[in-house]
């Protein structure tokens, strides 16, 4: 197990280096006018030149990248060029907010999707058709449309939830729950829809296998066959899909965070990329790649744990 983990982490580091390098190079070629962005429309040429020198924008690519990389390797991701906030601090304060809604949405969607997928695969008939219809309908509705409907009805109309804002779990758990409920609901529709289809297809496929028929012929009850055997075999592809969806959710939560004015990574990503705040953009890239690596590693380990056949020795 340990060599496997170490190999994956090593590959992850190479991936991190490659992605950050490519990103930095791309940002370098779009950084010509960042000094102007910072100083505004009425900046004089002298001001712009001074700001470029201050931020090192007049340095060649290699020098700038080496400077950034040197800092990143020691945990210093620099400061925002627009408000001087340390990048690490900006990300650390915002990541828990994004993870709150993303992890919660993923957990809730997983449970719902599993229940719907199992019901559709086992019962078939009208339940199966209903689940497929729900999947189609939910797929057609973007999360921001759902968000606006939820806010209008449940927050503004009925006053059951706050329309905007976030309460940290540490400040007040029940207010935290209230503040993330609508954003989570907005995210889980499409997530549940596509995951339910995955669960359904995987379970149908596994139930058709010979060994499952053998288990039934030996007198095992349908529930026992389903829970102890079918789900274990059907889990890996579903988990893989969920890991992809977690990564997709990190991007998909951006609009939801804007609508609910949540102080997460989303608004920071939008603002920093729009303005050309390269230190912050690079920080977001680093964090995102690290999360992708960790999530993929966890999914592989869980898959191996659930089903010994897919373990890598």
């Amino acid at each position: 197990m340990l060599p496997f983990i170490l190999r994956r982490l090593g590959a992850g580091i190479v991936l991190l280096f490659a992605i950050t390098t490519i990103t930095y190079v791309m940002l370098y070629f779009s950084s010509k006018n960042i000094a102007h962005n910072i100083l505004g429309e009425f900046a004089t040429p002298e001001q712009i030149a001074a700001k470029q020198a201050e931020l090192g924008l007049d340095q060649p690519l290699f020098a700038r990248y080496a400077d950034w990389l040197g800092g990143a390797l020691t945990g210093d991701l620099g400061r925002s060029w627009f408000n001087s906030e340390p990048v690490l601090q900006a990300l650390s304060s915002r990541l828990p907010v994004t993870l709150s809604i993303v992890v919660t949405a993923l957990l809730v969607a997983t449970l719902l999707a599993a229940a719907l997928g199992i019901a559709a695969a086992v019962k078939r008939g009208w339940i199966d058709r209903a689940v497929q219809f729900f999947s189609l309908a939910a797929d057609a509705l973007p999360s921001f449309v759902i968000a606006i409907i939820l806010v209008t009805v449940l927050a503004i109309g009925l006053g059951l939830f706050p329309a905007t804002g976030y309460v940290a779990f540490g400040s007040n758990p029940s207010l935290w729950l209230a503040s993330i409920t609508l954003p989570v609901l907005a995210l889980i529709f499409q997530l549940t829809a596509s995951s339910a289809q995955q669960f359904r297809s995987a379970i149908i496929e596994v139930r058709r296998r010979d060994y499952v028929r053998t288990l039934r012929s030996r007198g095992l009850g349908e529930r026992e066959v389903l829970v102890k055997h079918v789900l274990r075999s059907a889990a890996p592809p579903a988990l893989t899909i969920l890991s992809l969806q977690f990564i997709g959710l990190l991007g998909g939560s951006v609009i939801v965070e804007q609508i609910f004015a949540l102080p997460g990574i989303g608004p920071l990503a939008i603002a920093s990329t729009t303005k050309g705040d390269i230190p912050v953009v690079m920080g977001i890239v680093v964090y995102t790649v690290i999360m992708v690596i960790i999530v993929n590693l966890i999914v592989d380990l869980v898959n191996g744990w659930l089903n010994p056949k897919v373990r890598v020795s």
Partner: protein
Amino acid sequence: MTYKRRISALAAAAVGALALSACGGGASTAGSDGGSKSLTLGSVVEASAWDPAQAHVGHYIPMYEAAYDTLILRSPDGQLEPMLATDWSWSKDKKLFTLNLRDDVTFSDGATFDGEAVKANFEHFKKDNGPQASTMQNVESVEVVDADTVAYHLSAPDPALPIYLSNAAGFMGSPQALESQAIDSVPVGSGPYVMDESATIAGSQYTFKKREGYWNPELQKFDTVTFKVMPDTTARLNALVSGQIDAALLDPKSEAQASGAGLVLTKQQVDWQGMFLFDRAGDQVKALGDVKVRQAINHAIDRKSILDAVLLGQGTVTSQIFGESTSAFDESLENYYDYDPAKAKELLAEAGYADGFTLKMPSATGFDPVIYSSITQQLGAIGITVKQENLEGNEFRNRVLSGDYPASYYGIFQGEPWIAIGHHVGKDAAFNPQGYTDATSQKLIDRVQQGGKDGDDAAKELNRYVTEQAWFVPFFRVDQMFFNSKDITVQQQIQQAVPSLYNYAPAA
């Protein structure tokens, strides 16, 4: 391990991940403090660094006003009143601006406000190269005459200096704190409030508490002031309607819902939008060098229809670039160019362009696409073929300011005449990238620069001149739609996107 235990362990891990992810995130941003003694504002922008040298104007002003006083206070109607400076005067040659200062003010870190503090702030403002540093470009130095008197030495007259000292360039930070990086995160000023760091999340929410012992308690209408960063208009609307914030800027499309929820609307005109005809010399497009062609373009645009389509009629159609609140404004110029495509064609023919010509213009995602389609269609109707080049965000602005295009649609602030000249009329103005000037306009600009009654008269003459010469094609002045709850009263601030912090008060 049995299967059931594995599932239980998985479930426990999931709950643990959830709880861990929920930890942190700093202070809470949900909910209003409630009560008439707290003010919560929805802000379109997040604060830049809190260093006063990095202060910006417009939407940023009220945030800085929480922690910093300015040398001069500009009242809602534009009058200049004492603040940290008690009075001021110009020398005869308008190159020396002397201010007498209060002697009873301290900063929140205990440092004393005096002439040395003003000098330190000025030098820091210039050196730190913030977004408003160019406003001090005519100021060579600040002399400390004595502890309570400073003199600004100018290289050339600048009639806008008192106004600059009532906003970004006038914010005074503690000289002890100015050189420390800490002031970027936590402001240290002499203002009516101090930042409550425990209730502040950078980029999301800034909370200030009333400062004890502040020298001007009349400006402290609230015990707590909170700025919630909400760049999204839908979020601001929802927060207003649900009572989470007390006031915010919305847009015409939000009006129905906001007014229906019983919110109070005030309108303010701060910007004008229209076409900038940069190539008045005809270097890129020869036709634009002819005043009749530029006038034809003015007559070809149906301003009212575009205003109705794009802003639901929330604005005022105009033919002049100077705002109603300025000394340059001339009521007789408002409809100088009426919508008259026939007249436009006639003018084009007189100029020798009966067959029209091609005009390259950039288009940006920041403006409603209807504007560009209307320009293309309406100029096309008189024979001018518009070739749009779509550019994104900052690239649009940067290429426009580089002089890559002979003309562009844009929106710009309508400040006092000297400020407007510096922005888009004068030969060195940012929005005059081709540096166009002529003897007539320059003579008028020189008179405006001297200020006073003659400066005001010259501003009016300049307005008429650039209108008749069709340097621009103004479409309309835009209504800023500001909404507030009935728990507070608000006065709009002249020539400012949002009200100053001092303009809010609990409702009686």
